[in-house]
């Protein structure tokens, strides 16, 4: 039924016969099945709260409930208009006394406010759309770089069927996918020389979740290198003007009403340390995020300097290599799994265009992150127990308690899942850095393939049909 992945997609008919279509259908179907019934109640309660606050006329930061930069809030606002106009979601969520006990576990952020299945479904639809568009952008970028439809198809699959990406959008209901979406569009616009628009998109990406800010120096270096010979400063100025325009467009309400500090709370709390303590180790642990992010600035400057010396094909290849390295560096401070979604497109592109060995990083990050999300265990089924007859509430509560009961070495099964899954996803991040280091000290394998790589390529499954 499905044709060759290297075939061109030129019409709806060829699209539905292409493996990309099958991947898309599977990815969409899996997400749609999960959307209504499985959710992280703590976060989805906040999404409902934000919509309620907006509908009450309090904007994003008037009443408490929104702690991020504004883009996701605006997307929720847009969704609330659609819901209000076309849908009948009269109950966004309920306080469920049968689950009150989950709020007594002090070490976890559990809420017994349970959002309805209708709400869960519709609030996640934008995330699906974003995932799908990102898949297309990964496909487009790989195709643009390699002219190889097969590689592009694999790249699409590595993103759209990535368990971490699926669970982040469909279980966690987290919006990191939008940050990735705007960041990729920004990169594409830089490649297309649409620099003002690229700047706007950069602001949108950073004001969704701030991590793409670490791509700023790389993007500037890319623009300078690409326009070397007189137009570099004008080009950078165009992009910076776009950044400022995007920032002002998005932050105008907060600037006007004086809630700018509330709107950057996510950034300030993530970057600031919890406090200083006596020993050097304590200081490092309590200020780990701040230290990592400061080091990352120097790394990004160094990579940008290095990138600015490249040209032509090498410039483009190096950009994606350095972007992958950069994103891996900022996650040296152990991240929440949803943050790692930013890593996946760069991994996918690098795996299929340069070095298939990175598939092990992809696997570790994907599986580790996905299992981490599933570590929420039966807490994730509270909507199912409250708004359907598919699982009794007392059964869910007893299973939650079971996962909280200390089992092995005094830790509960839930703790074990979190710690082990966290270790696996972290191993995936470290492996990226190790592979780059190994390539650096074994003759540049990766960027140009290296002699050893070229010799081994025919044995790698990704390139079975590739002409070397």
């Amino acid at each position, binding site marked *: 039924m499905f044709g060759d992945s290297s075939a061109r997609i030129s019409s709806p008919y060829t699209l539905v016969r292409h493996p990309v279509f099958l991947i898309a259908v599977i990815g969409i179907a899996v997400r749609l099945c999960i959307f209504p019934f499985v959710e992280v109640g703590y976060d989805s309660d906040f999404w409902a709260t934000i919509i309620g606050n907006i509908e009450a006329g309090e904007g994003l930061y008037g009443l408490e409930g929104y702690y991020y930069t504004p883009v996701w809030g605006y997307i929720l606002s847009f969704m609330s208009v659609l819901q209000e106009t076309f849908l009948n979601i009269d109950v966004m969520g309920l306080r469920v006394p049968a689950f009150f006990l989950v709020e007594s576990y002090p070490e976890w952020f559990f809420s017994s406010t349970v959002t309805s299945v209708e709400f869960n479904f519709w609030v996640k639809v934008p995330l699906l759309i974003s995932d799908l*568009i990102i898949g297309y952008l990964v496909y487009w970028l790989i195709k643009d770089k390699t002219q190889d439809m097969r590689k592009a198809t694999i790249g699409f699959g590595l993103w759209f069927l990535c368990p971490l990406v699926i669970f982040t959008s469909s279980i966690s209901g987290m919006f990191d996918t939008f940050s990735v979406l705007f960041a990729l569009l920004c990169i594409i616009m830089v490649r297309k020389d649409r620099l003002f628009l690229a700047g706007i998109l950069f602001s949108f990406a950073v004001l969704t979740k701030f991590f793409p800010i670490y791509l700023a120096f790389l993007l500037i270096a890319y623009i300078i290198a690409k326009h070397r010979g007189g137009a570099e400063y004008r080009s950078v100025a165009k992009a910076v003007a776009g950044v400022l325009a995007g920032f002002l467009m998005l932050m105008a309400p907060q600037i006007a009403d004086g809630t700018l500090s509330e709107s950057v709370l996510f950034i300030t709390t993530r970057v600031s340390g919890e406090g200083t303590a006596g020993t050097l180790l304590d200081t490092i642990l309590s200020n780990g995020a701040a230290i990592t992010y400061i080091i990352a600035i120097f790394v990004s400057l160094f990579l940008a300097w290095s990138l600015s010396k490249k040209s032509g094909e090498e410039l483009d290849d190096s950009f994606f290599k350095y972007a992958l390295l950069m994103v891996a560096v900022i996650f040296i401070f152990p991240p929440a799994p949803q943050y790692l979604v930013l890593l996946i497109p760069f991994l996918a592109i690098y795996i299929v265009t340069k070095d298939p060995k990175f598939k092990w990083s992809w696997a570790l990050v994907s599986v580790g992150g996905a299992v981490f999300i599933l570590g929420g265990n039966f807490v994730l089924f509270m909507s199912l127990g409250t708004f359907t007859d598919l699982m009794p509430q007392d059964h869910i509560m007893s299973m939650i308690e079971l996962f909280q009961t200390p089992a092995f070495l005094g830790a509960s099964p839930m703790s074990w899942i979190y710690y082990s899954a966290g270790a696996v996803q972290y191993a995936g991040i470290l492996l990226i850095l190790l592979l780059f280091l190994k390539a650096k000290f074994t003759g540049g394998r990766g960027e140009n393939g290296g002699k050893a790589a070229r010799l081994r390529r025919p044995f790698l499954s990704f390139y079975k049909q590739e002409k070397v």
Partner: protein
Amino acid sequence: MKIDKLVLLSVVLCAAVLAGELAAYGISPHGYGAEAVSDGDSANVTVSSSGSDTFSVIVADNGTYPDLARLYIYLDERYGETIGDAGEAAGLRDVDIRYAIDQMCRSLRVRGFGDVVICDDERLLDEMLADAGDSRSKGLLVMSYALPESIYSGQETDLLFKWIKEGGRLYWMASPIGMFCRTGDGLAEVENAQELFFGRECVSMDDSGPALSVIDGNGLTNALALKWNRTLYGLNASGIEGSVSMGYSLDGYSSVSMVPFGGGMICVFGGNYERYLCDDAAQVISSGISCYSKVLETRSGTVTRGTAELSFGIPEGTGGISVYVSIGGYYVVFGRCMHVR
């Protein structure tokens, strides 16, 4: 001219985000309303919404106790100076008190209660003295942990008690009621505070997690969509004549309790300050419900892009009738208290 499809896609996505921004801060498409009129033996209520929303209506007979017209919120400008001592003595959590008061004002405004006066020591004293003789339509909300000694010093003759006895409503949250007063020397602990307010020891000092039982006797917990399930600093009002409890309970203590005091009322909310507590307090205050209120009927329903009409019978011999409508269920987007008689 051929338009680049990825440029078009970028523009469309940015436009969608900006449309959301416009809806949040500019031209709001969201609109809600409620009206109540009486035609003798019934109250006719209309509830309207631009979307699809659940709503609840509480019809209450408040007898001769007047409606709450003005609320004072006490701003303790020395909150930060002594929170450490108070926290150590009573397990209080430090909050940004100005932010908390701002949140309360906003929550009340959403529910249609706008006559709020934020008072420092001096202003509060002036207002309470000016109310002398009739504080029956006034309320005082304390969100911090100590009142100035000019108002409360732990004596039965204090202005605070006089003001409540003359009809005022004292709402107290996020600390043990009356445990501290503020003197010229700093913070002082009042030894017999609970006896002064309630005639016995009945305030919970036990932070043992969420209250698991729903208090559903009068239907107010559901009708007001109360959320905050903590009883720390809450009351065990059982046995106090005329008391009303709602919310959630643990070991006899309730998350919300109202008790009569002279001609006025004391309402205590359990738990440390959280956004849920702020919501609950705003609901209770805006609803106008007091311990003198008799709930005649509660009803809930759904209104979808239009108006819902409801009619409630009013028995003969009732006093002042209030109708409180809240829209949005546990995510309140609109509230309005109306007086039909």
